[in-house]
C-alpha cells in the first residue's frame, strides 16, 4: 500500500519535471510535451486523492500508522 502511494507521488514529480523540460524546449513540440505532462500530473493527483479517501474510508490506511514514517 505505502509503496503504491509513493510510486504515484514519484510519478507526479516525474510528470512535473517532464513539463519543465517541455517549457525549456519551447516551440510547438515543447508546448505539446508540457501540456501533456501537466495533464498527466493532474490526472494522477486527482486519482491519488480519491484513492486515499477510499483507502481511509474502508480502513486500509489509518492516520499515523502508515509504515512510511516510524514513530514511537
Amino acid at each position, binding site marked *: 500500500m505505502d509503496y503504491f502511494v509513493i510510486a504515484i507521488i514519484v510519478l507526479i514529480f516525474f510528470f512535473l519535471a517532464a513539463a519543465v523540460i517541455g517549457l525549456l524546449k519551447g516551440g*510547438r513540440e515543447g*508546448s505539446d510535451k508540457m501540456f501533456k505532462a*501537466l495533464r498527466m500530473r493532474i490526472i494522477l493527483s486527482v486519482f491519488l486523492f480519491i484513492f486515499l479517501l477510499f483507502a481511509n474510508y474502508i480502513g486500509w490506511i489509518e492516520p499515523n500508522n502508515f509504515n512510511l514514517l516510524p514513530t514511537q
Partner: protein
Amino acid sequence: MSNEKYYVPHGTYWPIIGSIGVSTLFVGFANQMHDVSWGWPVMVLGFAIIAFMLFGWIGTVVSESVGGLYNSQVDKSFRWGMSWFIFSEVMFFAAFFGALLYARVLSVPWLGGEYNNIYSPELWEGFKSAWPLITTPGEVGQNGVTFSTNFKLVDTWGLPALNTGLLLTSGVTLTYAHHALRAGHRNALMAWMLATIALGVVFLGFQITEYGHAYHDGLKLTSGIYGSTFYLLTGFHGFHVTIGVIMLTVILYRIQKGHFNLENHFAFEGVAWYWHFVDVVWLGLFIFVYWI
C-alpha cells in the same frame, strides 16, 4: 536564428528600486522580531516597494514583448530563467519537508531513546516520544520562553480535505484553460481562468479560517516542533498560493488584452507550471502534515 543579435537590455532604474525594497523589508522584519514598534510598518513599506517594482518591471517587459522587441534568443533566456526559478522553488519546499521528516523520523524518536537506547532522558514531565509531539514543556522559565500547551490538532477531514479538493479542482480548470488556449477558444480560456482564480481565492479564505480555528485551539508557532513545522510549511504554501492567484489574474488581464496566441504564450505556461507545482506541494502537505 544565428543572425539574430544577443539582446542587450536598456538602462533601467527597477533593479535599484528592488534593492531598496528588499533592504527595507529585511530591516523592518529584523526589528519586528525584536519587538521594535516601527518594525511592522517598515516591513509593510518594504513589501509595497517590492510590489511597485514587480508591477513596474514586469509591465516594462510585457510592453517590450508586445512591442515586438524580443527575438527567439530572448525567448530562450526567459525559459532558462523560469527553469532556474522552478529549481529554486523545488529546493525551497524540499528543505521544509526535509525539516519536517527529520524531526518526525529521526530527532523525536532519538529523544525517546530509539535507535541507540542509551540517551533516554525525561526531558520534561509528560514527555512522550510520538508524532505529533503534542506534549510541550509549557512554562520553562528560561529566556522568557513559554510553550503553548494543550493544543488541539487540525481535523484532517474538515477544511484541509475540502481545501485539497478545491486546489485539485483548480488544477483541472487550469488544464482546461491551457487546452482552450492551445485550441484558440478565447471565451472558454477566460472562463476556465476565472474559475481557477476563484478556486484559489476560496482556498485562501478557508486557509485563513482554518488558521483562526487552530490558533483559537492553542496551536501556535510556540507549540513545539509540530506547531513550528505546521505554520512554516502551510504558511509558505499559502504565500505561494497568494502569489499564484496574483499571477493568474495578471495572465487573465493579458489574455483579455490579446497578448497570447497559439504559438506564443510562454508567460501562461510559466504561471501554469507554478500553479501545478503549488497544487502538488499542497497534496504533500495534506498527506504528511494533516493526515499521517
